[in-house]
């Protein structure tokens, strides 16, 4: 695959089309509020409380990264935010409304693309799948799907099946499907964890570009501290057993960020160091 570092913003804008831009009433939305949430998997013993009294909130349009030790409950947190599992205690509100099931303005990018992409559909039909479910008219689907594929820089693979694509391409495809439905919130569960560094850099930049253009709210789980600092407006650190927020780090690095320059900035290095020490102390 071609790996493009730092997509040119001018070029990226020109290829995009108005139809996929967020509609005005959606643009301002996408707030998340989590207060005092607790969760334990059904049937688990009382001491296996995965999340306890966890609170944080995300402003509309904010890019928040969540980091924490492995197994601390990051995936579980995303499942709670998306309404895939119900909170046991406390409250989760998306745009001020209590979450009862997956909200329609929410997209989810799974850690494992095999659990998201349909192997019997080619790329463009996989993107269309999301639009079918959202009730988009047949005649508009193909064009919207193509736009979404262009947006993640995946333009020439329409007819390839997931099995014929690399891991990075499949993650892009998954992101394209989530974007095609014009969500205002995007939850991402270690989406780039299985990729090589160069591909990851390219996808991080593509994601930031899309985020900026569409004004999305993003909650991005990662175990890569550099990635968290590079992407985020704010990094939320969870501790383990049961998960709770121990620290929130504001990241005020200039945007648009650049893989080379931003990572070399003293502020980046300092934040990364602070994050590392915070997690080590857990």
């Amino acid at each position, binding site marked *: 695959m071609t790996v493009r570092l730092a997509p040119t913003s001018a070029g990226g804008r020109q290829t995009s089309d108005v139809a996929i831009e967020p509609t005005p009433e959606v643009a301002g939305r996408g707030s998340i509020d989590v207060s005092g949430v607790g969760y334990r998997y059904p049937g688990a013993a009382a001491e296996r409380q995965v999340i306890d009294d966890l609170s944080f909130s995300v402003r509309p349009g904010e890019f928040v990264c969540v980091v924490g030790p492995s197994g601390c409950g990051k995936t579980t947190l995303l*499942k709670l935010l998306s309404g895939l599992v119900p909170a046991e205690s406390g409250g989760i509100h998306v745009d001020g409304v209590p979450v009862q099931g997956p909200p329609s303005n929410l997209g*989810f990018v799974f850690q494992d693309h095999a659990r998201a992409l*349909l192997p019997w559909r080619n790329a463009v039909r996989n993107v269309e799948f*999301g639009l079918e479910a959202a009730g988009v008219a047949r005649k508009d689907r193909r064009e919207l799907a193509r736009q979404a594929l262009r947006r993640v820089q995946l333009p020439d693979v329409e007819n390839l099946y997931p099995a014929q694509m690399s891991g990075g391409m499949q993650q892009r495809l998954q992101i394209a499907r989530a974007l095609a439905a014009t969500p205002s919130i995007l939850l991402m569960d270690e989406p780039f964890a299985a990729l090589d560094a160069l591909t990851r850099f390219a996808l991080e930049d593509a994601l930031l570009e899309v985020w900026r253009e569409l004004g999305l709210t993003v909650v991005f789980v990662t175990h890569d501290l550099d990635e968290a600092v590079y992407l985020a407006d704010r990094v939320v650190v969870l501790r383990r057993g049961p998960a709770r927020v121990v620290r929130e780090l504001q990241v005020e690095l200039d945007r648009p960020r650049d893989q080379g320059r931003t990572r070399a900035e003293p502020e980046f290095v300092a934040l990364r160091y602070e994050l590392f020490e915070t997690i080590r102390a857990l």
Partner: protein
Amino acid sequence: MNMAGIVAGLRPYVLGLAGIAVLTAGWAVVAAAELLDGVPPPLEVFSALGEQLTGAELWRATGHTVAVTASATAIATVIGVLVGAAIGMSAMMDRLLGSTINTLRFVPPVALIPVVLLIMGFGSGSEIVVGTFAALWPVLLNVAAASREIKSRFEDMTRIQRLGPVRKLFSVYVPGTVAATITGVRVAAALALILVVAIEMLAVPAGLGHQVRFAGNALQLPTMYAYIVWTGCVGLLLNSVLQATERYLRRP
């Protein structure tokens, strides 16, 4: 196309025929040396087969056996898909039906033959019932396993996409289980054929099984073997058709 291309194209068939050639050669040796009683030489069997192939009886018997086998397989497929999908998609249905299915599927279908004959008589109906019983399990178990797999793999995704039950069924479960279903049907058709021929040999006076037994009773051994060979050919053809369908459905 050049010669090498033709040779390469025929290679799988040549290899497939090699096994049959070796078997036939072994059979010819056994018959020539008169090692076993009642084994006519292959040439006699093949000329008897040629004779039968030009007559009407073989084709009538073949038509009967194939029709009954196809009916049994079709009924088994419908029941197997419905019940298999139900227990694969719903944990409640699995608990409800699981132990019943696991008991029934260990009942040898041959053991059913006398019972079915008593209840339904010596006609095609009995053949279809026994054939269906044998053919049911491969379809049912394959469909159940495939839908269970699809459910656990795509449950979160389908919920995030807010799929309704109908769309979920037709855009996820059906395409996701169709290949495994055909594999089940292929195994099922083979079992149905075996059971249909068996019940014809034992009791029902029609079809290929009946011809085998009839020729045997009349001590026309070459004809009897000709029918056995022919039954094998019918099975091979049936399997090839279903295998091609399966390959087509499993692309890309």
